[in-house]
């Protein structure tokens, strides 16, 4: 297949892309299928019609959808034409392409086919998506050779795996996958597992060595979780490659579910560096690059298990003046929030002791039986949570700061974990000021700077400084192209 740009010639994706079209059609007609199934159980006469719908009509719709989806590349950009009943023509100018995502689902990998998703600027814009493209077609659409091999070295497996322990947002796809698995396999496996767990717990409560059994159960739970996270890492996250090439950040990750994402470097909306408590012990960081988001696709790279040297190198590639950011917080020129703000936070923290105490006293008065075996963990857990919040607040008050350079706002917050945020002022879309009664009395204001994908909030700064920051935003604001 020629790798040259084929212009003004309509093309069609591979016939293998009928499969994802069929899946989409099934989803769209799911209501009718479910309703028909219910009816057919009650009245046998409807069964042939339901069967005909599923076996004949839906595949036909998928084939028609594939047959009438055409694309081509012209001098103006990319054109997509789709629909056989109601036709639509989508024109996407090349310079308006903000985000580009190339992925290779597992069923396309043996066929050496790819999926492409393009996103343009602005809200409520249509996403441009195609499945089942050959590499030549992909290159023809993008207008340049595509190098999907020779990627830089990956972050080691164990660092990514360790990052899954403190990145709770990753647990959501794992829980969703488990739920899907349970619905597919029925309650046989999970139901029996749950019964065995309950039996083990009951044995622990009535055993002669409860501490031993408790530790054993805890160890089994941790090992089970470790296995699940290992699977999650292998499927979704490892290997993880990132590089800046041709003015574009390119990230690839995953083995079974491989995903590739690109962000134009000038369109970087925000950079966030996180170091949760567990990561601090290992000296690892989580780096998040936010690209230009839209209603349909929020693009955010998250690089897990990065070392300080790697973060420094990546920051240097984004903005060279911030390469040493992780050490800069020790310098005195960082500004801090007003003390009155922390006084109010501390008041709220003390007030939160009331419900925690009430819960503790009530559970104790019921003899720790109100919620069964959960009563004691709940009571002591709420006290622990209160103490944890207090410690975090004290550390936040002591270790935080913000700094405004010519065109970038830096914000650093350190409680039990640490977080740095870098926000280029020229990407700010909207500014919001909030003033409570307390802030009004002390001529302070809360300033929130929002980009298309992420925001930074300065909790309590002088009103005059907020005005100066806003004037700077107005000077630097330029179009997002």
């Amino acid at each position, binding site marked *: 297949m020629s790798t040259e740009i084929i212009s003004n010639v309509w*093309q069609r994706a591979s016939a293998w892309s009928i499969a994802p079209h069929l899946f989409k059609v099934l989803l769209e007609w799911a209501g009718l299928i479910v309703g028909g199934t219910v009816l057919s159980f009650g009245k046998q006469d409807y069964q042939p019609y339901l069967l005909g719908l599923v076996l004949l009509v839906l595949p036909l719709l998928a084939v028609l959808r594939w047959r009438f989806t*055409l694309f081509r590349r012209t001098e103006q950009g990319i054109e997509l034409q789709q629909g056989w009943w109601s036709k639509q023509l989508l024109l996407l100018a090349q310079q308006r392409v903000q985000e580009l995502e190339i992925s290779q689902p597992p069923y396309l990998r043996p066929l050496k086919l790819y999926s492409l998703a393009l996103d343009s600027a*602005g809200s409520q814009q249509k996403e441009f998506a195609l499945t089942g493209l050959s590499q030549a077609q992909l290159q023809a659409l993008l207008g340049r050779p595509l190098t999907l091999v020779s990627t830089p070295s990956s972050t080691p497996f164990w660092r990514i795996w360790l990052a899954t322990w403190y990145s709770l947002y990753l647990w959501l796809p794992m829980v969703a996958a488990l739920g899907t698995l349970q619905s597919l396999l029925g309650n046989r496996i999970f139901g029996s597992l749950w019964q065995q767990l309950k039996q083990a717990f009951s044995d622990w409560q009535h055993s002669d060595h409860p501490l031993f059994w408790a530790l054993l159960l805890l160890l089994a739970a941790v090992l089970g979780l470790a296995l699940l996270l290992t699977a999650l890492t292998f499927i979704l996250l490892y290997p993880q490659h990132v590089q800046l090439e041709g003015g574009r950040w390119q990230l690839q990750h995953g083995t079974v579910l491989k995903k590739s994402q690109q962000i134009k470097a000038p369109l970087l909306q925000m950079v966030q560096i996180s170091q949760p408590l567990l990561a601090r012990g290992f000296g690892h960081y989580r780096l998040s690059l936010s690209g230009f988001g839209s209603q349909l696709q929020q693009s955010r790279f998250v690089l897990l298990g990065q070392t300080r040297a790697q973060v420094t190198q990546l920051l240097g590639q984004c903005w060279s003046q911030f390469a040493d950011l992780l050490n800069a917080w020790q310098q005195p020129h960082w500004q801090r929030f007003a003390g009155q703000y922390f006084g109010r936070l501390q008041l709220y923290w003390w007030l939160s002791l009331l419900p925690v105490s009430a819960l503790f006293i009530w559970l104790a008065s019921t003899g720790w039986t109100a919620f069964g075996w959960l009563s004691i963990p709940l009571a002591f857990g709420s006290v622990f949570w209160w103490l944890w919040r207090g410690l975090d607040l004290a550390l936040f008050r002591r270790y935080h700061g913000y700094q405004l350079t010519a065109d970038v706002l830096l914000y650093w917050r350190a409680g039990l974990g640490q977080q740095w945020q870098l926000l280029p002022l020229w990407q700010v879309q909207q*500014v919001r000021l909030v*003033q*409570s009664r307390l802030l009004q009395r002390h001529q302070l204001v809360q300033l929130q700077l929002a*980009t298309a994908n992420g925001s930074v909030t300065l909790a309590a700064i002088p009103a005059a400084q907020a005005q100066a920051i806003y004037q700077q935003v*107005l000077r630097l604001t330029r179009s997002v192209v």
Partner: protein
Amino acid sequence: MDSFATKNAPAEPVDSAHVAPDGQPVDNALLSQTFIDDVCLTQPLPAQWAGLAAAALPKRLLQRLLIALTVCTISFAASHRVFAYIDWPLIVLPLLLVLALWLGMVPLQLRHCRYVLRQRDFIYCHGLLWRKADLLPLRRVQHVTVSQGAIQKLFDLATLELYSAGSSGAEIKLADITHHEAMVLSELLSALIPQDEPPLAAVTSSVTPPSAEQRHVD
């Protein structure tokens, strides 16, 4: 008299300011000294700021009354048997108190709502206990919409929504201004959005399919 007289306002900001609701010029130096000063946020408003329409008060009161009536009707229909065994004053009096507070907040909220269109940005202030100011640079405005609900139609009111790039919802939602003001503001904002950007990239339209010789089947 059309208070927004600059229907053919230039796309680029110019030295001369555009017109404010009361006919006075508004430039970006306005309120620069007291813009975020708490004096500005709490004291009587300068003339250049525009408030919501006078009809916004009865409209919002009517809206809240309808909501309260709907909720009470549904609650009663769902559990009327329970109400038969409960002492009515124990329910009605607190509910009336809550309703009175909820309705009483409306004029206070309206008094703290104001907006101004400047040369380079649009500002909307609102909030009762927590005062908020939303500032949207005009270069960031992607498009503007005007909508009118059923109750708003009765009072000739409308909602103006300003959208910026990347937002899933409206960045600024200015509800209950007069329909005429909303239309004029919408036209003025659309004219003031900088025109140096390339036209919209994605355009959808219904077309006839290409002929067979224009296609290339891979």
